[in-house]
């Protein structure tokens, strides 16, 4: 008789289960961390994208009469050397950073993914990976600086340079992820049944790469934002006319003594955004595949 009671219990709970994959996610610890971090990131993105909605100042309009004002009711974070409202600039400043981060993550995932799969499935594996190793022998900032020195500084070139820096890292992760299903028995079976190489790649290898790719892409957004800020701080990233976090920090350096609030607030903005992305990357990794723990740093 226990069979029927079990059956009724299942039918009673079934509709509730159907209602919420979100609720199910919330019940696991990894899932809850993921939901909370996603919400925090969404708030950050909304604040940055919606900057015009809650500040009435123009981020680049100079006001020579109100230079270097300390934080006040009107200027929540004071003003900078040209009298521009720092609060407004810090929020607008996130826009180029987010754009660069997202573009680099998308570009590197696509190109790195293709290269990684090519390495895993063709006989050029060794050649491809040696070239990738060569690129990875440079610290990210040095390669980015060298490329920017050659290409010139602009938003496009920052994206190009950072993509070149991170493609090899993505390719390595994707190759590793694709090699696991490649060696699996079910792939061998598929090949035995006459499946073509593209079919094996798309049906068997690619699905296994999705989770690591998402985790890696999240970390790359974080890294790219940090490196972009560093490049702009060094004066070779975004053109100075763009109110980016790196540019604000670069300008804050000369007035660090008189107006510390500029550097403090812009730096906190970078740190908080990068921190959220890093925590999100960890949460995604723990949620999607606990076995990946420890991978994807750096």
């Amino acid at each position, binding site marked *: 008789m226990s069979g029927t009671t079990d059956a009724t219990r299942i039918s009673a709970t079934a509709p509730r289960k159907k209602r919420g994959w979100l609720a199910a996610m919330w019940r696991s610890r990894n899932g809850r961390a993921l939901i909370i971090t996603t919400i925090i990131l969404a708030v950050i993105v909304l604040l940055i994208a919606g900057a015009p909605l809650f500040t009435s100042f123009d981020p680049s309009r100079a006001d020579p009469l109100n230079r270097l004002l300390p934080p006040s009711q009107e200027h929540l974070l004071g003003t900078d050397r040209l009298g521009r409202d720092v609060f407004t600039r810090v929020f607008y400043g996130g826009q180029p950073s987010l754009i660069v981060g997202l573009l680099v993550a998308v570009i590197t995932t696509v190109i790195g993914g293709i290269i990684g799969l090519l390495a895993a499935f063709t006989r050029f594996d060794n050649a491809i990976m040696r070239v990738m190793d060569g690129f990875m022998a440079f610290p990210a*900032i*040095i390669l980015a600086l*060298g490329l920017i*020195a050659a290409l010139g500084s602009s938003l496009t070139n920052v994206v190009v340079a950072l993509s070149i820096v991170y493609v090899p890292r993505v390719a390595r992760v994707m190759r590793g992820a694709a090699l696991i299903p490649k060696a699996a028995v079910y792939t061998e079976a598929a090949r035995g049944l006459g499946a073509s190489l593209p079919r094996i790649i798309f049906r068997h290898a690619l699905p296994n790469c999705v989770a690591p790719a998402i985790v890696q892409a999240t970390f790359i957004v974080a890294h790219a934002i940090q490196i972009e800020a560093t490049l702009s701080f060094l004066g*070779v990233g975004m053109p100075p006319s763009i109110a980016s976090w790196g540019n604000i920090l670069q300008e804050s*350096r000369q007035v660090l003594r008189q107006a510390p609030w500029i550097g403090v607030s812009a*730096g906190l903005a970078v740190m908080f955004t990068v921190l959220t992305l890093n925590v999100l990357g960890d949460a995604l990794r723990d949620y999607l595949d606990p076995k990946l723990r420890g991978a994807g740093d750096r």
Partner: protein
Amino acid sequence: MFRYLTNHIISMLPTLAVVAVVGFMLVHLTPGDPAVFAAGPEASPAVVEQIRERMGLNRPLHVQFLAWVRNIIVEGNLGVSIQTGEPVSAILASRAEPTIALALASFVVALVIGVPLGFLGAVQRGRLGDRLIMAVATFGVSVPRFWLGLMLMLLFAVTWRWLPVGGYRPFSDGIFDALRHLVLPALALGLAEAALIARMTRTAMLEVMNEDYVRTARSKGLVEQRVLVKHALRTALIPILTVAGLSLANLLGGSVAIEVVFNYPGIGRGLMTAITRRDYPVVQAVVLLVGVIYMVVNLLIDLAYAGVDPRVRYN
């Protein structure tokens, strides 16, 4: 051992070739003509042509590349600075000492803070201490280093005036003064690396703590402290060694922004000066040098591995 070493070096060659090509191509990616930059804005076409001839820019690309590589390997000649006319190797040599001092100091910061924190995290696994340490480590990875430098400077040098705002003093002029100048940049550069090493140490320790011989050590009645330090940490040190080595390579090459913040006369700030003045031979040499250092450090790590861990076979 000798065969292991030669095999290793041979397997490095393709990567080294890629490093060289990347370093070489950086200049040739430039939209403008390097000869025009070298000659300056007011030079006549004849002068530009002369410089092009002298720099060998009118030869085919692969010939130029081979000549460049040959010059470096055979004569140790990295080229001549366009701006000052000095040999690039002399410029690098004069800036090497501050950068090496800073990298080593940051390395000490990273190890002294990172390894114990990671160790504690692993021992405390899942408890409050562990969570706190890992949270701090995630913070550490997320702080932009140059900003941490600015903030440290703002507090300790500008507001409280305990330490100098920047610059470098050689150790030969007095150890105390040299250290005072090193503290802030080394902290700014080393703390993020400490966070990475802490994470790595924790992971390595957790892996080792599940091994059979650790259980054996416990079951034969060893004191927990001895088990953790003598048996677990000792083995965990091997992967930590790898990360630490790469960290050192990163510190040698990644100090550009910190050197700029603290007005520190190292290779990184030299690179920035070269970039703003479009002094390509210098940029090229620094990029190549950093890449080669990274590869050499990698080789040394692998050799150390073979020395420390008997499980690593020599072929």
